[in-house]
């Protein structure tokens, strides 16, 4: 998992470096490319003949519903057949959907780091939390980093096995917070200030956890489960509308796929 994350993160970081001055354009391009990728998958693994047949059946039963509105038995039968045709259509789309699930998941998890979280606003406080394996944790300290003020001592929530600090960025920072955990040191990336950029989420010690939180390597200190910084959410503004990046991503990739489906000979 670590190698996969390393490779994918490297590719994505390079991509967003290219679009660092126009991140919205980066989102549009990657959404269009995703739409094209979906069409390529559909082209290879879907059965256009059977999909077309299922769609025609759906259309036929819809027509039947409109034409025989005064015939309850026909309407009932048409509704059942319509449901069946829809299920058939969905079953035919299942295979390409399954092919797309894993790459889309891996992509979306990474897009969240770029578009889903904002760097900490300069001057605005936030909380850093470290989850420990046991309630009796070793001595802890957060080492101050230039540009980040640590405003509280470590505050323990014993019942949760968590320790938190309140920090406040005084300047734009792209660096690492260092924590002393007993004799060991563990680090967590921190991003503050303009511009919008890749903001790593939670850093975990769990192998499976890195599937969901792939932005930083696994924590190697045995006492620590995870470290998280409470970043504000981000939204993407296009066409004068603010929306979460996922809305734009799905909308643009779907529209792209619909616009290009004939060129790829795909039936949707």
């Amino acid at each position, binding site marked *: 998992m670590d190698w996969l994350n390393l490779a994918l993160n490297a590719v994505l970081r390079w991509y967003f470096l290219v679009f660092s001055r126009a991140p*919205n*354009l980066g989102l*549009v*391009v990657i959404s*269009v490319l995703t739409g094209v990728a979906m069409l390529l998958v559909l082209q290879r693994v879907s059965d256009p003949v059977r999909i077309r047949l299922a769609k025609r059946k759906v259309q036929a039963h819809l027509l039947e519903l409109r034409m025989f509105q005064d015939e309850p038995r026909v309407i009932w039968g048409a509704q059942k057949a319509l449901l069946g045709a829809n299920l058939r259509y969905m079953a035919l789309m299942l295979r390409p959907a399954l092919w797309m699930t894993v790459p889309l998941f891996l992509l979306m998890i990474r897009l969240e780091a770029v578009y889903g979280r904002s760097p900490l606003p300069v001057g605005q406080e936030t*909380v850093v*939390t470290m989850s420990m394996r046991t309630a009796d944790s070793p001595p802890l300290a957060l080492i101050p980093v230039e540009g980040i003020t640590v*405003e*509280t*001592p*470590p*505050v*323990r*929530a*014993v*019942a*949760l096995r968590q320790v*938190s*600090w*309140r920090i406040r960025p005084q300047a734009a920072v792209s660096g690492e917070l260092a924590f002393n955990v007993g004799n060991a040191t563990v680090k967590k990336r921190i991003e503050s200030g303009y511009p919008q950029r890749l903001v790593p989420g939670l850093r975990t010690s769990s192998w499976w956890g890195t599937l969901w939180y792939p932005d930083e390597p696994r924590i190697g200190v045995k006492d620590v489960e995870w470290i998280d910084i*409470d970043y504000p959410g981000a939204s993407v*503004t*296009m*066409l*004068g509308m603010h929306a979460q990046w996922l809305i734009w991503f799905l909308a*643009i990739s779907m*529209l*792209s796929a619909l*616009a*290009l489906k004939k*060129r790829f000979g795909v039936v949707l």
Partner: protein
Amino acid sequence: MRRTAVVVACLVVAACSGTNVHSAGRRMIVLGIDGMDPVFLETHWNSLPNLNKLRQTGSFQRLATTVPPQSPVAWSSVITGMDPGGHGIFDFVHRTAATRMPISSMAETMPPKRTLNIGPYALPLEGGSVRTSRAGTAFWRVLSDHGIRTEVIRMPANYPPEIGEWESVSGMGTPDMEGSSGTFTFFTDDPAEKRTTIDGGRINRVAVERGRTLLRIRGPQNSLRRDQAVTYAQLTAYVDPSEDAIRVDGSGRDILLKQGEWSDWVPLEFSLIPGIQKVYGMVRLYVQHVHPYLRIYVSPVNIDPTNPALPISSPISYSSALAKNLGRFYTQGIAEDTAAYRAGIFNQTEFLEQSHKVLNDSLRMYHQKLADFSDGLFFYYFSSVDQNAHMLWGKHDEELLEIYRAIDGAVGEAMAKAGSDTALLVLSDHGFARFDRAVHLNAWLRQEGFLTLDNPSNASDEELFTHVDWTKTQAYGLGLNGLYLNLEFREPGGVVTLPEKQIVLDDIAKKLLEFRDPATGQPVVSKVYFPETAFQGRNLQNAPDLFVGYRRGYRASWQTTLGAVPKTLVEDNTAAWIGDHCMASDEVPGVLLSNRKIRAGQPQLVDIPVTILSEFGVAKPQNMIGQTVF
């Protein structure tokens, strides 16, 4: 491919779009400084350079206040240009004649009349409403009808705000989420704290187990339930075992607070129908102590301006637009928590810190709105002088002067913005005086034989006339200046007949003017006012039958305001609330400053809206009784 390119191009171009609106015209700035006192200004001109400059280069006069000199009454006159007999607001509280029970004078909540009952829920089939009790037309409506742009921020007695073609945010009178004027909650496990309810707040005992405790915060009654059950929001506080700091979860974002620190606004959700309907509030937390005992103050639950549960602005969406630009802000009408100070929950330093937060919140909005102001009328109200003067007057001048200095800074900004082509008015609704002696008006009425108890031994601080024998009572006191007759055909079982009414009132008035403080021999009352002669307006159905104008230094006791009949007549005011203005009106005039020459010899509050209309060339409506001061 061409279609795709067009879509992509549109998306890229649209990401950079924006709009601007420009307008131009005549301008006027009006600042309402509640409780700014002329004598305090005259004593401190050297410390208030902008106000002093305004006085020297423009005008400064005393501004006659209303009868009685109470903020909701006075500001209602500013809004409507009518005296209390016109707008119908006579006190903070009115009373229902049928029950003799106090009610809010400013607004009335009307539940929906038709509901659909499903299980425990009562789903409304029509909208409920909140209705202002103030009659008359607001001056900004008149301006708006003439196409003049107006922005009226935090005007008192403007809840619910009338919705129209203007921008306004409601001020004094805006309730918290409980519907009260402000009820804080204090959470503690300190065994020394025995109280559970106090005036303006409640004390909740908590148990800290494994460093964790729940803070259950009371919200509004659930209007969608048949039983109107109270809703609650819950926060979890984690207490560090050794450090003086806590972590608070449950509001969407974790909060860390050290002892002595205040949180920013903490949003809360109150569920009405689980998963379907909720309303939004917000609080500020203050960690007073962590060890050995936890003491956490939670502010009254303010209506969240980002998603208001009740109307607090015009247009309705205006509050959320403001909050989006400026962050959340106090929406509670009177946000300075004098109740926590009076109850001993806050010491003076803590109260001042809290009230400065309110002021800073207000100044933040003021800076932004003043900077944005381009044409028409800009009105902005500040509550801080009044609320701090109540707690500091006469004994803590330096601390009060700090507040005046902040307001002086705001006046300086307005002067700079106004320049020479924009009229600037700075006004207050009343001045201030010491509140040294508390007068138990109902005890005096009892002594003079106008009020009788069922048993003389029942004289006590018990409120709401619990032991009054109404068959033998001619008059009763309620509110800060009000005195009512127990009148036949109006009060149930009223004993004063209509022909006797004026005779009894004259008798009471005569005796009030002869009333001497038993401890000092000084007169207690300097004036009495009858509504029929004090007011031009005849909207008197809620008016007291007589207003008591106390001498400086005297005021109705807190017990009097809610209908208690204690044993003593007058006693020392030992509460933290040491300054007041609910006295005879000419004892506590307000101030009027302007960058223009004020020609009126004795300007009064009802002149203000007429002056504003006149500045824009708009004739005053017939029911406005004032004159322009210029």
